[in-house]
Every structure is written in C-alpha cells, then in structure tokens.
C-alpha cells in the first residue's frame, strides 16, 4: 500500500470506532473498548509505518509524502484538500499515536472495567463504589463507570480529530480537526454531566476556545482572500510569502503576513491555554483523568503549538508579531508557574504546569527557535501525559483507601496524601521520572534536553524571554518537588493514604512505556556543541525537523544557558524537597498565598468585566427591555388598536345597520306582513266564502270590461 494511502487512512479507524460504538456497542462495555482499542491500534500501526517510511526518505522536507483531492469547486478552480507528511508531521504522528494508544489502554483500567456496578451509581456521576460480599464480610470496591462505552466513543472521535489535524496539508482540514477536538473536549470535560461543576467547566472550555477560534477563522479567511489557497505549500511559496510580507494592513502597522499570523496565533492562545484565554484549562480538570492527560496535556493543547510551528514561515515574516508571540508565551510560562506553586489539588498543579510549559514553547517560537519548540512539544507530550496518568493512578489508589476507610476526604488533595511511594511503587517511580523530566533534571530526562535547547536559543537574542523562562524553570522544578514530596514521600497523612493500593496493569503499563520515552526521547536531540557527549550522536532531531524550513543556524554554544538550566532545575528540586519534607498540613505551607491560590483573580475579573455585563445585556437589556418591553409592547399596542377599530366599526356599522336595519328590520317586516295577512286564514268558512265572492265579482267585472273593450 502506498504511503499516501496509508496517510489518508490514519484518521479513519477511530472515526469508524466512534460510529460503531455509538450505533451498536453502547450497552456492551467489553465490545466498546475492544472496538476503540482496535481503532487506536490500527491508527498507531499506520502512523508508525508512515513514520518509519518517512525516516527512510532522504530530504523529506523537499519531497514530503503528499496527496490532495479536489473538494470544493470555486469559480474555475477547486479548493484542494489533502494530506502532507513532512518532518514536522512525521514527529507529530509519532507522539500523537503513542500517547493516544497509551491513554486508550489506561482508560480501560481507569474506568474500572471488570468491576461490579455500584448500587448507587447513576449515569452522569462518577462511580461511588460497590459493596461485595467476601468471606462473609462486606467490602466496598471501586465500581465500573456506568457510561463506559460513551467515553470510548468520545475519545475515539477525539483521536480522529487529532490525527486529521496532524496529517492535513491545508488550513481548512486542520481547522476541522481543531473544532472536532474542541467538541470532544466539551463532551469529555462534561462527561459526568450530572455534576454542575463539570457541566459549567465544559461550557467554559468551549466558550473560551471559541473566542480564539473566531479570530483563527478570520485569519483563515484573510489567507484565502489574500492568496486564493489554503494549502500550506501554496501559502509558503516564497513569492506568496513575499507578497504577504509587503502588503501593509491598518492594524498595528502589521503587514498582511503579520496580521494573519497574529490572528491564527490567537486561535492558539485559546486552544493552548495561553494568557488571557487560559481560564478554561484548570476547570477542565473536572473531566476524568485520561481526558486531562490526552486532551489537556498531550494532544489537544499541543495542537495549538503544532499549528503555530506549521505556520512559522508566515509568522516569522513580521517581527512585531513574533514579539507579541514571545511576550505572550513568556508571560504565560511565568504566570502559570506562579499559580502552580500554591495549588493543593494534584491535577490543578499539573494543569497550571501545562499552561506554563506551553508558554515555554510559544516563547521559543516567538524567539525564532522553532526546532526547540517542536522538540519540547514532543517531549512534553510524553512526560505530561505520564504525569497526568500517574496522578490518575494516585487518585485511584487514594479512592481505594477512601472506600476502605469509609471517610469522606478529597482524594485529589495532596495534603491528604503522603508516603505513597511504599504503597504504589510503579506509580511512584514513573511519576518521579515524569516529574524530573518536567523539571529538566540533567542528562537522563528528555525534558532537560528540550528545555535546555529553548533556553540556549533565547539566550543572547531575547534576554527578557530568557530570564523569564529561567525563573519559570526554577518555579517548575520547585512545584514539581513540592508535588512529589507531598504525594509520595514522608508518611501518610490520612488513613486513606495509608490504605492506598497500586493500580491494575492496564493503568501501570502505559505509565512504564511513557516513562521510557520520557527518559530516552531527549537523546535524539543532543546539541552538537554540548560539552562532553555532544557530537557523539548527531543531533538527528535538529536535522530532521530543521530541514522543514531549510537551513537553520545552530545556536552558538554558550555556557551560561547550560549553567542556568542546571542551577534552576537542581536548585528548584532541592528547595522544593527541603521546604515540604516535614509539612503536615496546609497551615505549615508557606506558599498558601491568596493571590496565587486564587489564580491572580483572573476568573473574578472576567466575571465582573465580561460575564456580568454580558448576562445583564442578555437578560435585562435585550430580553426585558427590548424584547418584552419594546417589541412585545409594540405588538400589544398594535393588537389593542386593531381591537379598538374593530369594536368601533362594530358599534357604528355592524350593530345598527347590518344587525338592526337589515337583520332585525327584515324579520320585523316579514313578521308584520305575516301578522297582517294571517287573519285571512281564520278557518271560518263564512269568511272564506265572502272572500271568494268578492274575488268572483272582481274577476267577472274584469272579464266583462275586457271583453267589451275588444
């Protein structure tokens, strides 16, 4: 089978799985996860096959695998859509396929497949646990998720969206994949739809990303109207790029290329949760953990960064846009990190960490280091998915403890945990690897290599970005150490933590596999100038991905970024560990600062500035005043007027003329006539005879006179 055909086929198995599950397998849990896993495995197999073939092609960037078909007829040409696998898409396929497959496998165990159904479990709420009899003893065990099949259907649809986005060769199908994922994000965040917080979170996510998507669509429309094409290779032709760069626009003095880049970037601001559209991501933690891992760590938010890397040739034409991008990225990196240090929920820390890390990638892109950003994208996908899945395993272990001890505590609060390294060893070691990768622990973790490359690229040319990212890296290491210490080290702080249990193999196997990548993936991107080991292995990643845009200068080696990254990583880890070693409860936590805990009050500001006025406009202004008052008032007035006219006409014309004169009058006349003539029929024979006598006299007289006159 040709590679192009394979590429076309990659997004299809999960779509097919979605349809089959929805139509046929909704009641059968085993069948639905088989179908979903089958779809994921097929896509993974095709993606890996394409990846391997792509590796074998010399100069993939100049001759990518590409195939397109005519789709929408426009005047005398067609809008063509198709697939394109150049080096960027190849590595995109790699990390997307692996993370999606791992998360699908994990979901089987996460939703407690094989466990009994809980007595009080209702569809739409998280399962509470089932009571079983064992040895005459009643035990509470975790129960299976009631909406199991629905979950697998939705994540299959999501996988379809992501694969479509990665392989597409034009902005239109990329946007289609983008929106499909947005929909699935909404459906999956609100998966437990009976929880009001989950419902609201789903709506918030969709609305916020929608704001970004509107601008992105404007950008797409602008591109199409300016160039007549939406395919990447069409837009990135040197001639086209030059034209776009030279046409000025009235907004901010940007060239057309800059404005398009900015508009498309705003889409990423929404989708990848950059400031100011980041507010949806922490609330999105209401969804089940595999959702958090897949959508909000590894793939969907990465799609925003992926798209920016894709349009990098366009974006890089205007230095002002690049500055905006770099600023937003760096600011978000620091912003997210400052909030993460004050969060107590294990998933919230990771959510803000994701926001921060995405800020890293965006900042790198703004500084022009797109290979570094792509590298960090791939490594981040793996170790963030690992961390989220690990946190899900921790939460499951804690919930097991909660069921055992029958005390109601928040299973996600890190201050209820502690000492879990003994109870959940596999989770501990894999989470540790992920955490160290996130912090950038030197040499043995992938995060180190990618973060180091970003720092190295921003040093020198963009010092403000460099300093911000360095501080954010310190905070990252700090809150990671805080998280690790509070969760796994020390002693259990509650009974539930003391009774925690390791998770099933379907949950721990993906953790192990992902941790292999979290460790080893960095070694494909060792810079050549690295002291000691640099140059032993060629910087394959840089060559492979860098070739997408032609020659790219390798950053000049400098000691300072390397030293900085070592210092902040190790220093942050050490300080975090030491600060939280002996902390027993939140009162001893020095960082429970209200501003940080409350996320810099951004949600409250938005609520006061944007939401309340919007609700007021809708409820009061438009509904009460305009709709009910004006429009309905006008209609009521109109109605009353018409009724008055009708009444008047009735009084003036209808009643006196029609009713009285014609109606009653006619009957009066007829009755009168009858009354007058009736006595003629008196029934008295003598009267009849008089009448006939008169008639005879008259007729005789008439006959006589008439006959005489002739």
């Amino acid at each position, binding site marked *: 089978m040709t590679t192009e055909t394979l590429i076309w086929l990659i997004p299809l198995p999960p779509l097919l799985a979605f349809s089959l599950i929805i139509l046929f397998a909704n009641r059968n849990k085993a069948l639905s996860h088989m179908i979903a896993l089958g779809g994921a495995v097929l896509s993974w197999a095709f993606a890996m096959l394409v990846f391997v073939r792509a590796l074998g092609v010399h100069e993939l960037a100049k001759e990518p695998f590409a195939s397109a078909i005519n789709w929408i007829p426009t005047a005398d040409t067609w809008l063509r859509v198709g697939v394109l696998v150049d080096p960027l898409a190849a590595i995109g396929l790699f990390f997307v396929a692996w993370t999606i497959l791992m998360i699908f496998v994990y979901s089987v165990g996460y939703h407690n497949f094989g466990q009994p159904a809980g007595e009080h479990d209702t569809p739409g709420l998280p399962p509470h646990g089932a009571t079983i009899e064992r040895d005459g003893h009643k035990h509470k065990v975790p129960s299976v998720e009631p909406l199991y099949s629905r979950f697998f259907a939705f994540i299959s649809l999501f996988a379809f969206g992501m694969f479509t986005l990665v392989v597409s060769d034009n902005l239109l199908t990329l946007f289609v994949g983008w929106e499909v994922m947005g929909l699935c994000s909404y459906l999956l965040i609100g998966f437990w739809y009976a929880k009001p917080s989950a419902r609201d979170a789903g709506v918030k996510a969709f609305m916020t990303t929608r704001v970004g998507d509107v601008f992105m669509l404007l950008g797409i429309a602008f591109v199409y109207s300016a160039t007549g094409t939406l395919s990447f290779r069409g837009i990135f032709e040197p001639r086209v790029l030059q034209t776009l760069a030279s046409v000025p626009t009235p907004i901010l003095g940007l060239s057309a290329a800059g404005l398009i880049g900015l508009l498309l970037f705003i889409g990423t601001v929404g989708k990848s949760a950059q400031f100011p559209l980041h507010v949806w991501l922490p609330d999105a933690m209401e969804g089940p953990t595999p959702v958090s891992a897949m959508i909000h760590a590894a793939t969907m938010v990465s799609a925003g960064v992926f798209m920016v890397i894709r349009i990098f040739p366009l974006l890089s034409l205007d230095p002002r846009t690049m500055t905006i991008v770099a600023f937003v990225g760096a600011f978000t990196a620091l912003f997210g990190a400052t909030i993460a240090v004050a969060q107590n929920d294990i998933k919230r820390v990771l959510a803000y960490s994701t926001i921060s890390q995405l800020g890293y990638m965006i900042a790198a892109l703004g500084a022009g280091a797109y290979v570094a950003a792509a590298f960090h994208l791939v490594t981040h996908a793996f170790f963030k998915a690992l961390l989220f899945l690990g946190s899900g395993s921790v939460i499951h272990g804690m919930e097991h403890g909660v069921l055992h001890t029958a005390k109601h505590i928040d299973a996600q609060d890190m201050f209820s945990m502690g000492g879990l390294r003994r109870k959940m060893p596999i989770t501990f070691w894999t989470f540790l690897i992920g955490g160290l990768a996130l912090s950038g622990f030197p040499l043995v973790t992938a995060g180190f290599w990618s973060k180091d490359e970003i720092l190295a690229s921003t040093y020198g040319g963009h010092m403000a970005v460099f300093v911000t990212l360095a501080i954010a890296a310190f905070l990252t290491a700090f809150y990671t150490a805080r998280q690790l210490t509070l969760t796994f080290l020390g002693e259990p702080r509650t009974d539930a933590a003391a009774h925690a249990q390791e998770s099933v193999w379907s949950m721990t196997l993906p953790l192990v596999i992902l941790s292999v990548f979290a460790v080893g993936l960095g070694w494909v991107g060792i810079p050549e100038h690295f002291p000691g080991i640099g140059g032993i292995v060629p910087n394959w990643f840089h060559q492979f991905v860098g070739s997408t845009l032609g020659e790219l200068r390798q950053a000049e080696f400098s000691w300072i970024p390397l030293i900085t990254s070592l210092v902040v990583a190790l220093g942050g880890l050490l300080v975090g560990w030491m600060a939280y070693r002996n902390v027993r409860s939140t009162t001893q936590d020095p960082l429970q600062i209200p501003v940080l805990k409350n996320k810099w009050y951004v949600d409250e500001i938005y609520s006061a500035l944007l939401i309340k006025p919007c609700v007021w406009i809708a409820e009061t202004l438009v509904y009460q005043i305009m709709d009910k008052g004006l429009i309905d008032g006008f209609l009521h007035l109109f109605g009353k007027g018409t009724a008055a006219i009708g009444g008047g006409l009735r009084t003036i014309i209808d009643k006196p003329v029609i009713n009285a004169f014609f109606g009653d009058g006619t009957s009066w006349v007829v009755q009168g006539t009858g009354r007058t003539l*009736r006595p003629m*029929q008196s*029934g*008295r024979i*003598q009267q009849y*005879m008089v009448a006939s006598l008169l008639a005879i006299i008259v007729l005789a007289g008439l006959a006589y006179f008439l006959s005489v006159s002739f």
Partner: protein
Amino acid sequence: MIPLSWYLILSAGLFSVGLFGVLSRRNAIAILLGVELMLNAVNINLVAFWRYGSVADMAGQVFAIIVFAVAAAEVAVGLALVISVYRQRRTVIAGDLDMMKW
C-alpha cells in the same frame, strides 16, 4: 206569458237571499238552509230558461231534476257532518269551527 226577466229577477233575488244567509248566519244548519235556497234559485233559473227556450229539448228539465237530487244528497251529507261536529265540539256555530287554518 209574463216576461222571462220576472223569473230571472225572482231567481236572482232568491239566490242573493240565500247567499246572504250563507255568509251571515251563525248556525251551521242555517247556512245549509241558505245553500238550499241558492240551489232552488238555480232550479228556477234553469226551468225558466227551458220554458222560454226550446220546450222540446228535455235537457233543461233533466238538469233541474239532477240539481234536486244533488241538493238533497248534499243536505243529507251536510247535516250528518253538522251532527258529527256537534258530537265532537258541542257547537253548531260555524264561526267556532276554525281549525283549518295556519
């Protein structure tokens, strides 16, 4: 011979009296009396025209005989009706028998 017109005037006068009686008498039997008078007046008329016309033609006399017979039969029937009505209505005043109306 006396002029025909004397017989005719007599007949007319008798007829008028009879008609007057029919139209103005209350009692039904009296109305029948008036009817008889009218019929007899007609008979006088018929016989007069026969006598003063062609005597040989018997049609005039035959007509008069038939009129007698019919008058008698009719009176019989009329009286029977009056008796029947009296039995029902206990009245012989023609003006009270006004059921045949609207």
